[in-house]
């Protein structure tokens, strides 16, 4: 056959073959293959999207945790500082109270000592008066009027108190 010899039969066979292959493959090959490819591409895209979303979320969480950590650190520092000042105040209070208590105790002790001293002095004075009276009575031999003598003795003692040097001398 010549290269350029037209053959309608060959053309018809070409059309038949091509159309049959097209229809068969479209139904049994291209549709499933293309659908599968599309599904896979969609799946991959979803996976990438999910991964990106997960990463964004992780980043956000990380930032959040960092923020929380920083907040916590600041909070801790604040609490520690507060504790320090509180402790300082308590210490000062305690010291202050202890000092004032000690002062109060000392003051009370002073007053008590003073009181005791006075009482002792009064007792000594009384005893001295009694002694003096007894001695004087025995010397004189006669009993003086109790009340008068006592007044005299006390007057004398008051003089001594006012000027102890004079009595001693």
């Amino acid at each position, binding site marked *: *056959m*010549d*290269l*350029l*010899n*037209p*053959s*309608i*039969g*060959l*053309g*018809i*066979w*070409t*059309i038949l*073959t*091509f159309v*049959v*292959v*097209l229809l*068969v*493959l*479209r139904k*049994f*090959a*291209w*549709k*499933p*293959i*293309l659908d*599968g*490819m599309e599904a*896979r591409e969609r*799946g991959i895209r979803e996976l990438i999207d999910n991964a990106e979303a997960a990463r964004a979320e992780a980043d956000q969480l990380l930032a959040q945790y960092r923020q929380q950590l920083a907040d916590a650190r600041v909070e801790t520092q604040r609490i520690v500082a507060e504790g320090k000042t509180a402790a300082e105040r308590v210490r000062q209070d305690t010291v202050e109270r202890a000092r004032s208590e000690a002062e109060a105790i000392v003051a009370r002790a002073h007053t008590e000592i003073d009181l005791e001293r006075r009482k002792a002095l009064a007792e000594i004075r009384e005893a001295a008066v009694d002694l003096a009276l007894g001695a004087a009575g025995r010397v004189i031999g006669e009993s003086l009027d109790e009340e008068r003598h006592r007044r005299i003795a006390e007057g004398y003692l008051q003089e001594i108190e006012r000027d102890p040097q004079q009595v001693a001398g």
Partner: protein
Amino acid sequence: MLATAASRNGTAQEPSSGPESHAPAERELGAAVHEEAQDVAEGGAEHGEGKFDIVHHLGDSHELDFAPFGTIQLPRLEVFGIDMSITKHVVFLWLSAALMLALFIPMARNRGPVRRGVGNFLEAFVVYVRDEVAVNNIGKKDAGPYVPYLLTLFFFILFANLLGLLPFGATATSNWIVTGTLALITMVVAEGSSVVKLGAGGYARQFIPVKLESQGVVGKVGNVALGGLLFVIEAVSHVSRIIALMIRLAANMTAGHVVILALLGLIFILNTYVVAPISVAFAVGVYMLEIFIALVQAFIFTMLTALFIGMAVHPHH
């Protein structure tokens, strides 16, 4: 194919050259060409032994040539007065079709998430045709329905091209009837999709793509004349691009084979083994090129088809 050419020509000298190997190369060549021309004039089907017959090798025939192992006669059919013989090229179209069915239907059944082996290899082509050919030329919105057609076209042409490169193979796509028919299908699809998309009025309007609004008698006449001219130009462009499609594929597939056969024929024409290494080396080089061309031409045909469909669907781009 190499074997075919070599073996046929191995017997080339027996009947045609009476004086054994003393005959000058020029006379041999002249005789061969002359007899070949006679052969063609006689109808070409009866291919006598002893001729260096490139045309016979490239053309269609009623037998499958497995020289030196003999030939298989193909059935001759006539339906309604049309010669519907199962010729060599029909057989190779069917082989191409069978190859496609054998490769792609199993590939479609493999539904795993990852393709392996041949399916993986072919999927790269499928993705390329879908994304780079169909979507790029037709647009993401409209490409969908055309993808199966473009895929079928690409692999049908590719396999037909490659089958022609096998020993004893024939290139159905080097036959202009085959490529012409495929181009015609492209034209029907492109123009048909244009009519479907734009409507009959919109389809007709694109043949006169500018508005002719000149006033006055002279202007009106000018409008008609210019409109007619534009219509003719547009119509010619619509038809000629289809003819170009037909010729491009057929000529490309023929040319490589002619070059290979001519290079190998040189050995027998010059009737010396000295040129054999050079001829074979060049033939192997051209054969490599032909593998590439088989792929490129399948791609170009598909690409241009997609382009024409794209132009038909979006006429103003």
